[in-house]
């Protein structure tokens, strides 16, 4: 009897323990519901634009092709009297401006072309054009430009600016003009 009592007691104890244990388990709060991770929305902003450093005048100049520079005509042409090749007084300020530009751009080499109007013969005009180019070169040398930076050529009357046959056209055609050939 006693044995069965003990047994039942033990059983009860175990049961009770079990119950209590269970109770304990039940008391554990449910794990928090798993949150699904959402991708973070990233706002894309434009990257900072690379800003070129401001170009110096020199860099702008060096970027241009010879053709582009020549199109801008940085060196103004000068004109001559009929059959003459001396530098006229009205051409001198132009040459001073041209010399200043050549001093600014030390690396530039220039071709001075001598031209004539149609009222001279082909042969004499070629020589006259050369004389015009030469006196222009000499004047620029007197203003401090190195003769090594300048070349001369004569086209005689073969390249008129104005194909007219009047004093206005002739005056336009009697000229020394500049072409930049190296920078």
């Amino acid at each position: 009897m006693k044995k069965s009592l003990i047994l039942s007691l033990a059983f009860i104890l175990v049961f009770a323990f079990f119950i209590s244990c269970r109770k304990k388990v039940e008391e554990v709060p449910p794990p928090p519901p798993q949150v699904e991770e959402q991708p973070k929305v990233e706002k894309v902003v434009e990257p900072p634009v690379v800003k070129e450093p401001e170009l110096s005048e020199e860099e702008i100049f060096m970027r241009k092709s010879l053709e582009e520079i020549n199109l801008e005509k940085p060196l103004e042409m000068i004109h001559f009297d009929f059959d003459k090749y001396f530098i006229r007084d009205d051409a001198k300020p132009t040459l001073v401006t041209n010399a200043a530009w050549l001093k600014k751009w030390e690396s530039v080499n220039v071709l001075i072309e001598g031209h004539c109007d149609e009222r001279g013969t082909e042969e004499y005009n070629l020589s006259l054009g050369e004389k015009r180019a030469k006196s222009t070169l000499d004047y620029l040398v007197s203003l401090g430009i190195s003769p090594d930076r300048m070349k001369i050529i004569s086209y005689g009357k073969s390249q008129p600016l104005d194909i007219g046959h009047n004093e206005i056209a002739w005056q336009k055609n009697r000229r020394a003009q500049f072409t930049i050939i190296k920078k």
Partner: protein
Amino acid sequence: MIKKLFFLLCGFFLLAGIDLYSQQEVVLSIKEGMPAIPIAIPPFIVHENNGETNTAAEALHKIITDDLKYSRVFALLPKSYYSYIRPLNPKKIFFKDWESIQAKILFVGEISNDQGENILFEGKLYDVKAGRFIFGKRYQAEKSLLRLVAHKMSDEIMKIFGEPSIFTSKIVFVSNRDGNDELYMMDYDSHNQTRLTFNNVKDYMPAWSADRKKIAYTSYRKYKASLYILNPYEGKLIEVQDIGTNFAPAFSPDGKKLAFCSTIEEGNSEIYIATSEGKNIKRLTFNKAIDTAPTWSPTGREIAFTSDRGGTPQIYIMDAEGSNVRRVSFGGSYHDAPSWAPTGDRIAYISRVNQIFDIYVLNLHTNRIIKLTESNARNESPCWSPDGRHIIFSSNLTGTVQLYSIDYDGTNMRRLTTKGENKLPDWSR
């Protein structure tokens, strides 16, 4: 007493004569030279009569007739005269017939077909008065070469009369007909205009070598005006001189030397001389003035040129070594572009008066001057034909610059070019 008076008078006339010559008066159009020789060129005889051969015969006849008419050596008999006499029989020529219509020389042409494409042309020259055969020549050629055959025949006829070959000579010139100044050449009668240079640069002032094989000229390349020598028949081009502006080349008559203008030194144009290949360059003129446009005397001993050493451009002559310089043009303020006649006695040049350029011919023996052209235009760059009877030049007579030829006495002016603008002619010797 009478004797004394006679000497005095003689002296007076002598003085007057000297005075007259030293004044260099301008005299218009003097007809000079010997009378032309009357020549009969009856229609050519055609064997194996067919259409094509007939056309070829007519073409040959026309070209040879035109050539000999142009020569100024012959006077052609009017065609109508041939109907007055018995028709020509090449086997038996009745010289009395030809004498009766005043022919001194008779040219008989016979033409036949030779194996299809080729023609066979035979020309014979007879002395009518002596009734004898002078010379004959036979040519075989393709039909496309008719013009050349005719010109060769004409040249042979001229040769008999001691004349240089002119009809096979060539004229080189500058034309912009294809957009850019390039070199072209043509026959003396403006046929066969052929382009010689193919580049995008300006080609300028061509000059033939004595052997008609090479052309010296200026070409603007690489910011330079360099001198080149072109062999158009071999397609060869060599650069001769590339320092400074180089122009106005002129080969010596013996073909060994080349005179030209250059600004090698000090940017002033001086006359230089080199071998015909442009080697061994020597300077001939030494002064601060412009010296340009050299032209050789036919002996090769002297060079005429333009210089403004006296203040205005004038014609001077110097020895080919550069010494003994003397002025030969007077009485104007602008003389240029001298061309020494192959006969040696005359120099053609340009004189500018009131913006008009006309061609003048100075006779070096008599100091007489002939005004060759009379036009309200710019006539430029005169150049003599090989026989010294014609001058080619450029003129803006019609508004555009074109080439013309004119005879030594100012007659027979004819236009040679039409396309584009054409200038700076040089007639091969």
